[in-house]
């Protein structure tokens, strides 16, 4: 038992080192801090065939984003006529060589709309293990070499936990707990799963309504101070990931696709308008500002250097993250954007549904599209930025873009 505790602490320590180092890692949906901000990382200024470092074929489709852990790109996919083959793959970041693949049979339901995939949730990692979640509510823990640690079938356990349109919430991991949000018209819940054993630490019933939003993690000074924020039509809840205890809530009608984003001492919430909440104030006066011009449709808002970016179909909008003041907007190429962009250095990276990857130089007074490349395949996933490279997955391929040295 002591050994197990030690292992648990080592995992935490490892994750802490990675986070403190500003990380050559991208550990979850919208990055390690779930905010779409690449921190000190920079990405390529141009996306083109010249900056395509490598391209790898995937065995199936997916709307999940790649994550980057210790020089490995981890990505999920689903395949088969019934989309019931679940794939987890690792590629070498430098060469694009496939290192390993593990495949599982879905134990839950795999009906899915064409604008999503069973491989819609982005995996999460604590730096040592990968927690891959799928729309079938299968949750798999592997080490970085693809060795299976444990697996769960949450629809196997709760058979009506499905919406037959495609579940999509990405998990988050904090201090030995992976948090999965499973909200549908059937059994609906959020659960904290022990990262070591795969056993349920806690489970909270949720409104029986369809919800595709992902939880986000508000990191404290230690994992014990972390909060996981979940959003549904009924409002926003901040939970303690170790216990599920509710620490804070704010009731307002929220969106059910675009997800909340950590911001300073609170979150930005896609509601009828974009809403900035401060968790340190009382619930009643938590709303710092609202801005209708920063509303999101399906992609989640992201924040960097005091600016917030959101997308309404193909219109990228920028605002002041402190005041909500609208600054500028830019029409992107394409007819729709499903995925959430990321921002690194002076550039914002976004892909249209049709697969046009675009680089936007961000500034105080305007945004400027500086580069774009059509991948000729749909893109539903958010990119990752690590070590000067941009990783993006189209429905069937994984790409690395990087400036040549």
């Amino acid at each position, binding site marked *: 038992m002591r050994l197990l505790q030690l292992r648990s602490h080592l995992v935490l320590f490892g994750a802490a080192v990675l986070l403190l180092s500003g990380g050559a890692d991208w550990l979850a949906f919208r990055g390690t801090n779930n905010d779409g901000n690449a921190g000190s990382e920079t990405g390529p200024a141009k996306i083109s065939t010249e900056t395509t470092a490598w391209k790898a074929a995937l065995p199936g489709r997916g709307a999940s984003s790649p994550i980057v852990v210790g020089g490995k790109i981890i990505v999920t996919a689903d395949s088969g006529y019934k989309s019931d083959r679940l794939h987890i793959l690792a590629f070498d970041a430098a060469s694009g060589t496939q290192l390993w693949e593990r495949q599982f*049979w879905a134990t839950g339901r795999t009906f899915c709309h064409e604008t999503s995939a069973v491989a819609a949730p982005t995996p999460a990692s604590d730096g040592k293990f990968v927690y891959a979640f799928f729309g079938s509510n299968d949750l798999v823990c592997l080490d970085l070499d693809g*060795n299976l640690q444990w697996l769960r079938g949450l629809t*196997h356990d709760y058979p009506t936990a499905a919406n037959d349109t495609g579940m999509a919430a990405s998990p988050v991991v904090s201090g030995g707990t992976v948090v999965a949000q499973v909200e549908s018209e*059937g059994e609906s819940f959020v659960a904290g799963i022990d990262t070591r054993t795969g056993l349920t630490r806690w489970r909270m019933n949720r409104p029986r309504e369809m919800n595709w939003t992902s939880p986000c993690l508000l990191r404290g000074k230690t994992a014990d101070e972390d909060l996981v924020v979940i959003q549904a039509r009924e409002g926003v809840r901040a939970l303690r990931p170790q216990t599920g205890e509710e620490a804070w809530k704010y009731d307002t009608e929220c969106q059910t696709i675009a997800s909340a984003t950590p911001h300073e001492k609170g979150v930005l919430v896609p509601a009828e308008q974009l809403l900035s909440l401060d968790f340190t104030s009382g619930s009643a006066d938590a709303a710092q500002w609202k801005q209708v011009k920063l509303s999101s449709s399906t992609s989640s808002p992201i924040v960097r250097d005091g600016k917030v970016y959101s997308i309404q179909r193909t219109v990228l909008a920028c605002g002041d993250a402190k005041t909500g003041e609208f600054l500028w907007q830019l029409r992107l190429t394409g007819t729709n954007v499903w995925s959430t962009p990321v921002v690194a250095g002076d550039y914002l990276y976004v892909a249209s549904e049709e697969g046009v990857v675009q680089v936007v130089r961000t500034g105080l007074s305007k945004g400027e599209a500086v580069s774009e490349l059509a991948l000729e395949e749909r893109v539903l996933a958010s990119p990752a930025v690590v070590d000067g490279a941009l990783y993006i997955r189209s429905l069937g391929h994984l790409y690395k873009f990087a400036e040549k040295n």
Partner: protein
Amino acid sequence: MHRVTSLIRLTLPAAILIALSTNTGAAEDLSSALKTIKAVAAEGAGNEQAQAAWKTLAKAEAAQIPVLLAALEDANPLAANYIRAAIDAVAERQLQSGKPLPADALEKFALDTKRNARARRLAYEWLTRVDKTAAERLVPKFADDPAVEFRRDAVAQLLDAAAKIDSSDKDTAIDAYRQALAAARDRDQVDKAAAALSKLGQTVDLPAHFGFIQHWKVIGPFDNHEERGYPIAYPPEKSIDFDASYDDKTEKVKWMDFATADNYGNVDLNKALGKTLGAVGYAAVEFESDRDRDVELRLGTRCAWKMFVNGQLAGAYDSYNPSTLLDQHIVKAKLKKGNNVILVKCCQNEQTVPWAQLWHFQLRVCDVAGTAVLAANRPPRPAAEADAAAAAPRNSK
């Protein structure tokens, strides 16, 4: 030389003994690990023990892959995934180290149609990685395979071949598409073959191909205000009397005939019982089976539902989804020789969004491969205008 021979005589039996005991030990380890993994259950039960056992499986020799494949036979879905991941790890390690997989054993396993379908497919897929001729040699044999994934490969080949037939050779094309249709079980392939046949002037009975029930007795609406009707056993759940009528809260309801001409067996209860929200409708069919048999009742509906076979609850799903999809819910059931009564309870709630206005279902009877099981008393296919005609009689006081 004599000394060498003596040495061999002395050491060989010991070496064999050690090798045998090592192999026996490894087999015992594998057997024990499989037992541990097969004990995993809901809510993560057994995960901690399975974690260590998985390492034992993943260290197995490639020659032991068929043993692991065979273990999938009686593994629950969670345990099957543990075992599958171990097989993949063993095979991947073997290939990455430049060593061969036991191709002959994999092929033998893949072709044994008595074995677990998923295990066979896994064997086949690893086989095709090391034997590039395997697909070409084997796929044509799969057209009548009980496993749908194998059959699908063969049907794809048949459809490709049919598409290449010269348009002037109509009879050959018709034969080719008929062959593809007969083998096809997945909807996309069925539709492709049926569309091609239609273009060639052929009629295809899609409901019969899938096994959709088209002729029903329907009754309702019963109350489902605030979704309270789902747990209530209204009279049809207690006994089936097609001559009976019942008082609902607003009107007297009685059994009526309803036939659907829809290619996918869609039973529109808004048409049959009147457009309403917060309602429960029942549909029943008398299904004459030629023998005692296991079947799958495959239901598609966005509504909450229950299904009863010969008065016994066979399946239930208390959730309202946006989409109605083919084979959305699969209920395993036993039919007895002779007459069977299949009863569907279809609940409509009171959501006002457009998709929630659909109050309908489709039901087909088939085997595990999706091959239609048709009733001995199956009536002729209704005419295209059947829906409208059937919608005319309505419940009344």
